[in-house]
């Protein structure tokens, strides 16, 4: 996936300002940056949820606007925070929606097998007949991830997946993200607020400031005292824990 000169304006003000980068396949890529830096907007544009004003997003050699919506949804899945949880659907029904691009709602045996596998992978068997509005935040997030797994896409985009989760569930979510990449071979792109999660669990970090890319590189390249201090405008210290650079800010 190649992003070139991406621009998005709201009321004449560029929230994303000619952003270009290439997403390395088979890796976990975190988009970080202060509030309003444009990371969520970039995520929205590359997942076709938000229309762009200028630039190109090339996916497999074809611009995403030229992809058929249904075909694209077999290759690329996005999970945003604004999922409607008041709906009384069971976990299994939700996960089955992941097969919609393939079967249009009439599940074949193959689809059911995918759904079973996704539920098992997310260890949701005991909850599969429970309504999602009766689950805890962590379980519900896992149910949505299971749906994305059933969708069987190469690319998975997650918009702040750790939002509203406590430390235990957020950390587990990051471990799941890592497994999606390592075990299932997916390319995972996520918007994160917690820098240390990005540092510990991703391969690449793309840091945004004021709609522009401040730094894009491997975790080691981005996680330096100078870069982070510039981006967030607070003082940083970098420490190495289990071979990963983690940051302390104050």
């Amino acid at each position, binding site marked *: 996936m190649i992003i070139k000169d991406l621009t998005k304006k709201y009321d004449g003000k560029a929230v994303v300002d000619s952003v270009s980068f290439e997403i390395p396949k088979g890796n976990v890529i975190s988009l970080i940056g202060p509030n309003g830096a444009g990371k969520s907007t970039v995520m929205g544009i590359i*997942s076709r949820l938000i229309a762009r004003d200028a630039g190109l997003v090339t996916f497999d050699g074809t611009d995403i606007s030229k992809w058929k*919506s249904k075909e694209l*949804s077999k290759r690329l899945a996005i*999970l*945003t925070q604004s999922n*409607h949880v008041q*709906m009384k*659907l069971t976990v299994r*029904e939700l996960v089955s929606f992941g097969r919609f*691009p393939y079967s249009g709602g009439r599940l074949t045996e193959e689809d059911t097998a995918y759904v079973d596998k996704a539920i098992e992978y997310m260890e949701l068997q005991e909850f599969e007949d429970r309504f999602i509005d009766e689950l805890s935040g962590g379980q519900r997030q896992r149910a949505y991830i299971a749906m994305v797994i059933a969708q069987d896409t190469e690319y998975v985009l997650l918009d702040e997946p750790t939002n509203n989760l406590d430390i235990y569930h957020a950390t587990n979510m990051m471990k799941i993200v890592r497994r999606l990449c390592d075990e299932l071979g997916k390319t995972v792109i996520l918007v994160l607020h917690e820098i240390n999660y990005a540092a510990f669990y991703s391969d690449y970090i793309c840091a945004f400031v004021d709609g522009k890319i401040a730094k894009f590189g491997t975790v080691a390249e981005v996680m330096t005292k100078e870069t982070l201090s510039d981006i967030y405008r607070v003082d940083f210290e970098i420490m190495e824990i289990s071979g990963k650079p983690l940051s302390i800010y104050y």
Partner: protein
Amino acid sequence: MISLFVGVIDITPSELFSGNPEQAEIFLISRLPRLLGILCTGVGMSVAGLIMQQLCMNKFVSPTTGATISSAQFGILLALLFLPGSTLWSRAIFAFAAAILGTWIFVWFIQRIQFKDVVMVPLVGIMFGNVIGGVTNYLAYKYEMTQALSSWLTGHFSLVLRGRYELVYLVVPLVILAFVFANHFNIVGMGREFSKNLGVHYNLVLFAGLTIAAMITASVVVVVGSISYIGLIVPNVVAMFKGDKIRGTLVDTALFGAIFVLVCDMIARVVIMPYELPIELIIGILGSILFIGLLLYRLKHGRKAVRLGSAGTGGCACAANSLDGGGDS
């Protein structure tokens, strides 16, 4: 559920026969059409309510609280005004167009405003419906059409006779259509981004679904008149027990709606025999009691605070709705 449904059907004809030993002709001209009319109304209104609730992501949206019924009535008035000798069909076309347009405007409006509060949406719908109802009434007074119009303002089955009720059969293909697209409606009900992720065209499905719901409502209003509560109560009651997966609940919703209207109609006919009460009245009373009862039951046995919240707003919507009904009568 099915056994109960079959039971009611089996009982009704025999009751009708014993009540009217005269001849089978009355049965064919009036009783049978009436029964079919009732079933179509119950099925149609509850399915229309189910679709609207799903698509608008709001449990308190229904043909009544979404301005569909009042728009359909407005359409009928226009037909009466401009085509004085209008047939049932031309009136129906006006009602269809007005109902679809009214519902679209309402949904477009609530989408633009993006209310955070679930109660605001039905309240806006009720207000919008009353504005349309006000215009309808004004025009009716001005052109001395009140008498002609009144039969469409309050729903009743006493005029459902052979030759002037067949339009209500349109409900059947429309409900089947709704069943075919049930999964699409469900996905759209999960939100715009959710739909896009699964490659579902959000706006297309949204407006197609609303069109189906509006057409169902309009075909009922043209034949029977305004029947307000079913579209609100029936889908909610079924969802409480069966969840929100439309494929799973559509049949139950349709059956429960049919039975509910049937029971209300029998009560309406029996209470002040040999006269008949408008079914709207019975549905209003029974429906409110049933709904409040269920909410109280849920409160007592509810497991989560979310239920408490929705129960409170339900009470408000009910109150607003009954106030609304009171203003009409």
